[in-house]
């Protein structure tokens, strides 16, 4: 995708489209009642498919922008303020991790996304522990790390499938 020179308008349109897609995925996720499993905070993180794909196919800045706008939109439509803070903490940590791991060029999107999933949950829980002063939440970290890891790996698998179809080479830097 980087090969062709794209105009600013094209880029804006593409980013808008991806943000909408990302938001749509957040909404689908909102409809799946994962909290019925009795483990609050467990999610698939579908929107991260879009963010990670953008990270590989377009660039770091653009993916960060999509991510941030998606979080703010979800908060405005169906979130609470504390939810926003948790989301921001989780996403910041997970996005930073994704960028670092991608840059190392040692992992495919599957590894990057799996680690990002785990980091997201760690960031979220850390924010919850600071805000609610419930150190007992610590017992919950291992469960969340493992769930995030597997959800992230599945998303990463989807991302690599998308990238190979779009024709983005992720093998090296």
């Amino acid at each position, binding site marked *: 995708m980087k090969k062709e020179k794209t105009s600013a308008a094209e880029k804006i349109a593409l980013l808008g489209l991806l943000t909408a897609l990302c938001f749509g995925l957040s909404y689908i996720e909102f409809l799946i009642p994962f*909290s*019925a*499993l*009795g483990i*609050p905070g467990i999610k698939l993180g579908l929107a991260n498919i879009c963010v990670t794909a953008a990270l590989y196919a377009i660039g770091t800045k653009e993916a960060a922008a999509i991510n941030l706008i998606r979080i703010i939109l979800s908060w405005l439509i169906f979130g609470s303020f504390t939810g926003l803070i948790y989301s921001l903490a989780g996403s910041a940590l997970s996005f930073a991790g994704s960028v670092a*791991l991608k840059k190392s060029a*040692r*992992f*495919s999107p*599957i*590894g990057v996304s*799996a*680690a990002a999933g*785990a980091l997201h949950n760690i960031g979220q829980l*850390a924010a919850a*522990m600071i805000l609610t002063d*419930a*150190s*007992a*939440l*610590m*017992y919950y*970290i*291992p*469960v969340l*790390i*493992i769930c995030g*890891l597997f959800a992230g*790996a599945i998303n*990463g698998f989807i991302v690599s499938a998308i990238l190979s179809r779009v024709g983005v080479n992720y*093998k*090296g830097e």
Partner: protein
Amino acid sequence: MKNKLLKNDFALIAAIFVIALAAAVFGRAIGRAGDTVEVRVKGEVYAILPLDKPAELDIGGLCVLKTENGEAWIESAVCKNQICVKHRSVSRVGEAIVCLPSGVTVKITGEGGADIVI
């Protein structure tokens, strides 16, 4: 090249998995059995019960707490999502069940407990 990346992916996932398991084991090892359970409603202490004898407590009509054999759990709740009812029973100092919709927290207290903040 691609296979090598996948191998690294696998190693990364396995490493994080092992770290999480180690954290779980560590959390269990340092957790000590509690003596009492502290019930709060919207931050205010509602009741403190000993854990050693069976008891049942109706928390302001919001949920019902049960204790037995050093464990405490929420038997029923009026809220919609029932997360606190599905939560496993708590017994170690610092462990808690939080029922967010009604603002009820149930926390195990006791001596020498680990009150760890990572």
